[in-house]
């Protein structure tokens, strides 16, 4: 009985100080609980004891009603290179920050953070890349399977949902670790036009006008909320995304080597996925004036 009471007190503390602060202030389309804001600094002693007891079990609730492994997975994403997605009236823009781990590392010729899922859907990744590769493969299989059945491109939300069902499974079924990956999906379909979705390790997803995942996603999210305008054009969206990324990145200067930019838009009635070349990206950074030392916000 005494034990129980101590849990209660720490629970009330937690709810008031750090849970779910995000979604009242975010520019979201539908409601969703997207709040990877578990803060380890604010842990009390009893909290730590409690989490030790339950954090090895991915599929078991703690007495406070939490799944620690899922929260830790979200925490892992908070340290990954960030990605930003912006929905505009004539396309969707994705930008990502590549973390340069070593000077000796060969920079890959293809994209590291952006992946084409199908002709009409692409995604940006934040989190553990090895986990992401598995999920990207599942998503590609799902998309092709759908086209095989119906000879029609898979609606974007269905694709996101099928992937999130996979993610959710790992928070409920035995002994496995959840995927440490958040995605931004950009796509177009004939029913709902351009769409942007964000998903997290718990399998939650939501449609957004502008969204950020990875390191400093809260700062980026609030900047996006401030600067996002309805009826934004694709070019303005690129500019905004680069600006927000440059101001929220940990490194001091933004260079084309540390960045990836991809766009999904309509070209002559057909959906096109285009990755910006490093040369063009460099020019764009100068043009929009983001290569100067970032200004404090």
């Amino acid at each position, binding site marked *: 009985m005494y034990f129980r009471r101590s849990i209660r007190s720490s629970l009330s503390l937690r709810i008031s100080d750090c849970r779910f602060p995000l979604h009242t202030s975010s520019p979201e389309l539908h409601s969703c609980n997207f709040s990877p804001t578990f803060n380890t600094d604010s842990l009390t002693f009893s909290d730590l004891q409690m989490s030790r007891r339950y954090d090895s079990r991915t599929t078991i609730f703690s007495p406070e009603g939490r799944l620690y492994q899922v929260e830790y997975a979200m925490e892992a994403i908070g340290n990954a290179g960030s990605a930003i997605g912006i929905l505009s009236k004539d396309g969707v823009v994705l930008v990502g920050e590549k973390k340069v781990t070593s000077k000796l590392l060969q920079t890959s010729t293809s994209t590291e953070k952006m992946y084409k899922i199908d002709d009409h859907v692409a995604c940006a990744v934040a989190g553990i890349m090895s986990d992401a590769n598995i999920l990207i493969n599942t998503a590609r299989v799902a998309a092709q399977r759908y086209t095989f*059945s*119906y*000879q*029609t491109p898979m*609606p974007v*939300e*269905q694709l996101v949902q099928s992937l999130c069902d996979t993610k959710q499974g790992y928070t409920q079924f035995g002994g496995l670790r959840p995927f440490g990956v958040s995605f931004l999906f950009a796509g177009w379909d004939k029913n709902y036009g351009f769409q942007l979705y964000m998903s997290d390790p718990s399998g939650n997803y939501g449609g957004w006008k502008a969204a950020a995942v990875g390191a400093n996603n809260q700062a980026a999210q609030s900047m996006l909320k401030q600067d996002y305008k309805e009826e934004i054009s694709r070019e303005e969206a690129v500019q905004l995304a680069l600006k927000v990324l440059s101001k929220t990145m940990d490194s001091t200067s933004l260079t084309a080597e540390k960045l990836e930019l991809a766009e999904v838009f309509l070209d002559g009635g057909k959906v096109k996925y285009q990755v910006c070349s490093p040369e063009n990206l460099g020019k764009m950074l100068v043009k929009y004036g983001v290569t100067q030392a970032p200004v404090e916000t």
Partner: protein
Amino acid sequence: MECVFGMVGKGFALVVADTSAVNSILVHKSNEDKIMVLDSHKLMGASGEAGDRAQFTEYVQKNVSLYQFRNGIPLTTKAAANFMRGELATALRKNPYMVNIVLAGYDKETGPSLYFIDYIATLHKVDKAAFGYGSYFSLAMMDRHYHPDMTVDEAIALADQCIEEIRSRLVVAPQNFLIKIVDENGAREHSWRRTTKD
């Protein structure tokens, strides 16, 4: 014997089917509906083995509505046709359904359309289609008189000509026929052509 046919007109498509349930030389029933309303804007005329027909048309119908519940958007006629083809193709190498299908539908983007699907999983998008013994007469009649942009009245008149030809030339002609139509307002029964009472 069985007669199922359909055609596409201007802004609509129609499906005609006989309504006889036959076994050997015996007519069990003369008001059997062989045209299933798949969803609000799709008609599925089916001929073939009676049990397989019922099983397959209901299976497809339930899958089409499951899709709609899950995803909040209906399948297009094209998607539904390809789904049926896939199901028939999978079944073909195991335990085939003996069904032939004339699928008519209306979609906002593409307008009316008609698909020919047979039991060996052939899929064609066509303007006019027919199955069964009646097809020898109705296909010939439609080849002679069909033209795109037909009005509903013209198409019904052509359907009547087909039925007339089947009745006068086919030894084992069915007694009654049912006509259903699909346009922007949805799929519905149009009329019956009866020679016997139920």
